[in-house]
């Protein structure tokens, strides 16, 4: 059965409007929906509000390109290939972006709450840190807390009334307009099968109002439904699907291809300045489409990144370089 969920990369990017709030699949430098991130940059999207369980190269690309007004998360960097987010850091320094800091577990619990339709979660993490410092409520200080997309408070404190467990932090549900996922397989009706760690993909898919899934392969829905206990996200939680091979590059995809560390290192090294970013974007983003990008990367590189199907990672990549 065809569900009519299939769209193009260009259509997918058009679903994200100027000012939309947005989140992604993956973890740091793994399974980030890069083909669509590039397309958003090409379409010169503005005023995005990124709400991420954790950030990564996709954050740095969108921030560097000036697409982002608000970044709400806990971490950004390129792991071994760039130890912090130089573009974000530059824009923070220039006060060109608002940053709202939570801890990693807080972000996760915020998405879990949204995914289960609860307005908030209670947790004991990060008590006593400056994450809870009332003076550091960036969105509140900017007068943006409208109680709709942006909660009325960054957090609230309470006490456990049931077991005397003590102070609790209430963290608001992370509600987002659009989630963009990048996975190994999606069925024609939207069923997603993630291989390996699924990170926080199930939560972000359900927390969003619109969920777009980019997959290495669109596979017959029947194939996935033959073993329904292996699937990760339900058909009806997915609104749009598209097939984009190598769509996570330069980030990696479990079982398919490794992180392109050299590419990330080059990005990190070249984009300390806005001029550097613009130059990088001119070379690798603007004027290309996804196939043009793959052509430019070339066969030797892509074959080298390709995972060994038994080991699930590439044996050709010289790691750490």
């Amino acid at each position, binding site marked *: 059965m065809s569900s009519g969920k299939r769209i193009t990369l260009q259509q997918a990017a058009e679903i994200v409007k100027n000012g939309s709030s947005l989140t992604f699949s*993956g973890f740091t430098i793994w399974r980030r929906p890069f083909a669509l991130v590039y397309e958003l940059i090409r379409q010169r999207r503005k005023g995005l509000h990124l709400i991420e369980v954790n950030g990564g190269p996709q954050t740095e690309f969108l921030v560097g390109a000036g697409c982002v007004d608000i970044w709400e998360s806990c971490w*950004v960097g390129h792991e071994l290939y760039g130890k912090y*987010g130089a573009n974000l850091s530059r824009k923070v*320094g220039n006060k060109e972006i608002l940053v709202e800091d939570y*801890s990693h577990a807080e972000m996760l619990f915020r998405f879990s709450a949204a995914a289960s339709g609860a307005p908030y979660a209670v947790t004991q993490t*990060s008590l006593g840190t400056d994450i809870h410092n009332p003076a550091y409520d960036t969105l509140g200080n900017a007068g943006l807390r409208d109680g709709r997309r942006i909660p009325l408070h960054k957090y609230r404190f309470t006490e456990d009334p049931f077991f005397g467990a*003590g*102070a609790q932090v209430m963290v608001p549900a992370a509600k987002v307009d659009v989630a963009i996922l990048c996975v190994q397989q999606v069925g024609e009706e939207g069923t997603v099968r993630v291989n390996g*760690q699924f*990170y926080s993909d199930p939560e972000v898919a359900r927390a969003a109002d619109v969920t777009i899934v980019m997959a290495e392969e669109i596979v017959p829905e029947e194939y996935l439904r033959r073993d329904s206990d292996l699937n990760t996200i339900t058909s009806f939680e997915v609104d749009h699907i598209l097939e984009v091979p190598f769509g996570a590059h330069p980030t990696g995809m479990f079982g398919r291809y490794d992180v392109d560390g050299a590419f990330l290192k080059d990005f990190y090294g070249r984009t300390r300045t806005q001029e550097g970013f613009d130059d990088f974007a001119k070379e690798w983003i603007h004027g290309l489409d996804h196939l043009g990008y793959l052509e430019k990367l070339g066969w030797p590189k892509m074959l080298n990144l390709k995972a060994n199907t038994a080991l699930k990672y590439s044996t050709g990549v010289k790691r750490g370089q």
Partner: protein
Amino acid sequence: MNKEFAKPEEYGLADLLCCAASREVQDNEIVFAGTGLPMVAIMLAQKTHAPNLKLIFEAGTLDGRPPEIPTSVGDARCEMGASRSSGLHDAFSIAQRGYVDLGFLGGAEVDQYGNVNTTCIGDYLSPELRLTGSGGNPDINSFAKRTVFIMVHEKRRFTEQVSYITSPGWRVRNWPGGETVHRRELYGAAYRGGPSAVISTLGVFRFDEESGRIYLDTCHAGNTPEQIRDMCQFDLDISRVSGETLPPTREELHYIHEVLDPEQIFIPKVKPV
């Protein structure tokens, strides 16, 4: 295998740090690991004195036994041989539920109470430098029974007061007021301990649980307690120094360089002179 200590020329500072970190792990413990040197240290413990330790990676790998050092906690190598490959909700739920004995963490700045900063240098509202942000640092530090920090030792990093408390030490802020209190008063049922050691490039530091203050435990070869105290902005307690940090054994060096990190991704090999 050869458990003799190696000679100074046979190892580098990274080897020493890695072995000191490894020795913080006890057998059968559940250990929460970040990328980099901590992961080498934990896997070294697994190969030597703690074969039954259980490794958790924040991205969702539970009881992992990677055959090679992963370059990140999202790495495909994490999944191999693990009990489960799952997600962050499981990893953090398990941590909050109290399963984690030990976490290894890093930081840009640490103060005398073990508060650590990985968020920004300077005023948060107008920072001199925005760093990576918290990541799971405060979470692991909130939930684990013990945490060990591995840090580059520069005087500006061992500071009287961190620019921003990213990760909670022994004496923290009671918000919304902000008065300083012992961690025990704030954490209630989640109080299970706190930072137990800082392993810097100069020495190993520990904490007095009651006062919450840091003190010097051992000096790495070539450093005196007084020199190390001079490298801290706060007044370091050097009254409890127990001696010199034990050097790596030949067995440990073998595992680090021949088995765990032969590609020298995290730990460079000392070249024979």
